[in-house]
C-alpha cells in the first residue's frame, strides 16, 4: 500500500456513489439520519449481497457435496465457486481456503487442532510437521497485548491444557508493536506466534512480513504464524500468501458479507498437517465404530452442513467490492481510506479532553478506525449522547481488555469506517462529540 502513488489530480472516490446500494444506511435513528461508524463491529451489506443470497435460496438451495440431484449439483458448483472467489480476494487458491462460521471459529480451529495434536491425534504422515507447533510444558505461545479476545482466549486455554505459557508482545504508547520486545520474546520455545494485522482498537497496521521473518529467525523456523486479518480485510487489499503467514482468518460480516460465515486461509503444507477440529459429516472418508479417517483439506475442516447461502453471499460481497474497485481504481479507494482516517484522527486530536488510544506518528500505516476516551465522561455516556444525534459508535472494551488495561482504562469509544463512509459522517460525529463534555458539565 505504501507504494501506491498519491496524486492530487486523480478522480477521487466519493462514497456517496455507493451509499444507495446499502439499504440500511437510509434508516433514521432518534429522528436523525443514521451515521453508522460501527463498521468494525459489523459492516452493512449491499443489496447485491442480499439479492445473491435470496436468489440462491429461491432457486438452487439444497445440500452440497452430498446429493446427485440437479439442485444439489448446482448448489455445489455455486458453493465451490464462492470458495474460489473468496480465496481470490486474499490472493489464495481455493484449496487453501476453509469455510468457518467466523473468525472466532477459525482461531479456535487452529488452537484446538494443535490441542488435538498434543493429545496424540496427529495426521498420519504429518506427525513431524505438526509437532513443532504443538506447545508443551516450557513452551510459549506468543501473542500481542493488542489482541482481540478471539485471538487470546483460545491460546490461554490451549496453554492451560498443555502446560505452555502465553507471552505478549507489548504495545507502545503510540499504538505500534514493540518489535524489540518481540525479538527478545521469541525463541525456540515459541510454538505459535498469533497476532492481528490491524487491532480493532488501535487501527495501526502491524508489520506482518517483519514479524514473520523475525519469528522464522528467532524460533528457528519452529513457530506457526497465525494472523487475525479481521480488521485489515475490510480496509486493505490482502495477499495472504505474500505476507508469508502460515494461517490467517477473517469474518464475512465485517467485509460487507453475511454473519455466520468466515474463512481460514492456510498454506498447503500447514493445512495438510493440522488434524481436524470440528468432527462430523462430510469431512471423513471412512467411519467405523472404532475410528474415522479424514478427507484432505479444506474438507477435513468443514464438518457438517456448511453456511452455503452465506458463502455464496460472501462471494457476492467480494464481487461487489471488486466492481467498485474496478470502477474507481484501487488507488482512489485507498486515498479515500486515508483521507477519512486523517479527518477522523485530526478531528479527534484537535478536541479538548479527548485522548486517542494509540496515536501513531505520521508514517505509520493506519486504517480508518480510532478508539478514544473522553476525560471525565464514561464511554457509554459518550455513546449515548452520540446516539441521540443518530451517530452509532461502539463503546466498551471492544473485546480487548488487556489492551485497555495497558492504556489505563476499562472502556473507550470507537469510530470506524467502511467503503460507504463519507466525510460528512465523520464531520457529524465530530460535531456531536464536541458537545459531550459540556453536556455532562465537565467542560
Amino acid at each position: 500500500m505504501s507504494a501506491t502513488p498519491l496524486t492530487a489530480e486523480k478522480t477521487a472516490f466519493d462514497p456517496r456513489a455507493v451509499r444507495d446500494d446499502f439499504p440500511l444506511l437510509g434508516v433514521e435513528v432518534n429522528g436523525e439520519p443514521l451515521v453508522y461508524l460501527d463498521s468494525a463491529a459489523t459492516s452493512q451489506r449491499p443489496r447485491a449481497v442480499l439479492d445473491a443470497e435470496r436468489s440462491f435460496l429461491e432457486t438452487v438451495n439444497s445440500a452440497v457435496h452430498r446429493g446427485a440431484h440437479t439442485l444439489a449439483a448446482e448448489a455445489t458448483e455455486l458453493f465451490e465457486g464462492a470458495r474460489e472467489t473468496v480465496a481470490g480476494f486474499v490472493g489464495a487458491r481455493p484449496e487453501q481456503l476453509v469455510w468457518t462460521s467466523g473468525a472466532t471459529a477459525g482461531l479456535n480451529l487452529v488452537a484446538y487442532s494443535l490441542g488435538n495434536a498434543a493429545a496424540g491425534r496427529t495426521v498420519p504422515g504429518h506427525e513431524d510437521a505438526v509437532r513443532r507447533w504443538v506447545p508443551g510444558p516450557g513452551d510459549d505461545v506468543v501473542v500481542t497485548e493488542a489482541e482481540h479476545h478471539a485471538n487470546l482466549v483460545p491460546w490461554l486455554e490451549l496453554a492451560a491444557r498443555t502446560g505452555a505459557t502465553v507471552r505478549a508482545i507489548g504495545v507502545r504508547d503510540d499504538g505500534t508493536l514493540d518489535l524489540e520486545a518481540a525479538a527478545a520474546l521469541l525463541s525456540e520455545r515459541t510454538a505459535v506466534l498469533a497476532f492481528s494485522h490491524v487491532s480493532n482498537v488501535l487501527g495501526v497496521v502491524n508489520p506482518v512480513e517483519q514479524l514473520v521473518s523475525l519469528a522464522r529467525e528467532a524460533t528457528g523456523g519452529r513457530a506457526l504464524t497465525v494472523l487475525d486479518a479481521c480488521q485489515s480485510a475490510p480496509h486493505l487489499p490482502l495477499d495472504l500468501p505474500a505476507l508469508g503467514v502460515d494461517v490467517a482468518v477473517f469474518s464475512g460480516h465485517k467485509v460487507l458479507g453475511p454473519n455466520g460465515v468466515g474463512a481460514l486461509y492456510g498454506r498447503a503444507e500447514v493445512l495438510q498437517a493440522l488434524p481436524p477440529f470440528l468432527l462430523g459429516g462430510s469431512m471423513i472418508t471412512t467411519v467405523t465404530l472404532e475410528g474415522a479417517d479424514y478427507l484432505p483439506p479444506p474438507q477435513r475442516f468443514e464438518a457438517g452442513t456448511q453456511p452455503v447461502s452465506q458463502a455464496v453471499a460472501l462471494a457476492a460481497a467480494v464481487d461487489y467490492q471488486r466492481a467498485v474497485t474496478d470502477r474507481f481504481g484501487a488507488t482512489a479507494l485507498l486515498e479515500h481510506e486515508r483521507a477519512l482516517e486523517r479527518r477522523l484522527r485530526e478531528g479527534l486530536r484537535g478536541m479538548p479532553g479527548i485522548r486517542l488510544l494509540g496515536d501513531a506518528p505520521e508514517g505509520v500505516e493506519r486504517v480508518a478506525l480510532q478508539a478514544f476516551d473522553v476525560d471525565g465522561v464514561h464511554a457509554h455516556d459518550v455513546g449515548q449522547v452520540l446516539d441521540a444525534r443518530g451517530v452509532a459508535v461502539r463503546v466498551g472494551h471492544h473485546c480487548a481488555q488487556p489492551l485497555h488495561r495497558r492504556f489505563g482504562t476499562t472502556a473507550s469509544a470507537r469510530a470506524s469506517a467502511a467503503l460507504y463512509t463519507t466525510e460528512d459522517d465523520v464531520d457529524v460525529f465530530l460535531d456531536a462529540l464536541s458537545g459531550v463534555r459540556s453536556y455532562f458539565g465537565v467542560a
Partner: protein
Amino acid sequence: MAGLDSLYQELILDHSKRRVGAADLAGTVEPPHSATSHQRNPVCGDEITLRATLAGGSDDDDGEVVSDVAWEGLGCSISQASASMLTELARGASTAEVARLTEGFREAMRSKGKLALDEEVFGDAAALSGVSRFTARVKCAMLAWVALEDAVRRAHPSAG
C-alpha cells in the same frame, strides 16, 4: 435531544458527581452484621463493590434495618447515580422495605418505559424511570441494586 434529556435528568448528573456512599472499601475490615457484594455488568465490564450493614431485627426480619450502605466502583453516570440514589434511599430502611423497593425498581426498569417510579416512594431514584426505555442501559441502573440485594442476603443472620 429530548430523548436524551429524559435519560440524563439533572438529578442523575448531579448524583453521578455527588456519589453518596462512595467510599474506599479496599483494605477496610467488614464491620459485624455486614456483608459485601461484588457485581459486574457483563455488557461493559464495569464493577461495583457494595457493603451493607444491618442492625436490629431477629431471625424473622422484624425491625431489621439497613443501617449503612457504602460502595466503590467505576462506571457510567447512570450506574454511579443509581448507586448514590440507592444509598440515600436504603440507609435506615428496613430490609423488608429494601426488598420491596428493589422488586419495584426492577419491574420498572424492565418495563421499557411503561412503568414510572413514584417519587414519593423512590425519592431521587425516581429520576431513573427514563432508563427503562434505553434497554442497553438498564443493567447500569440495576447494578447497585443487585449488589445491595446480594449483600443483604449475605449479611442476614440466617445466611451465615
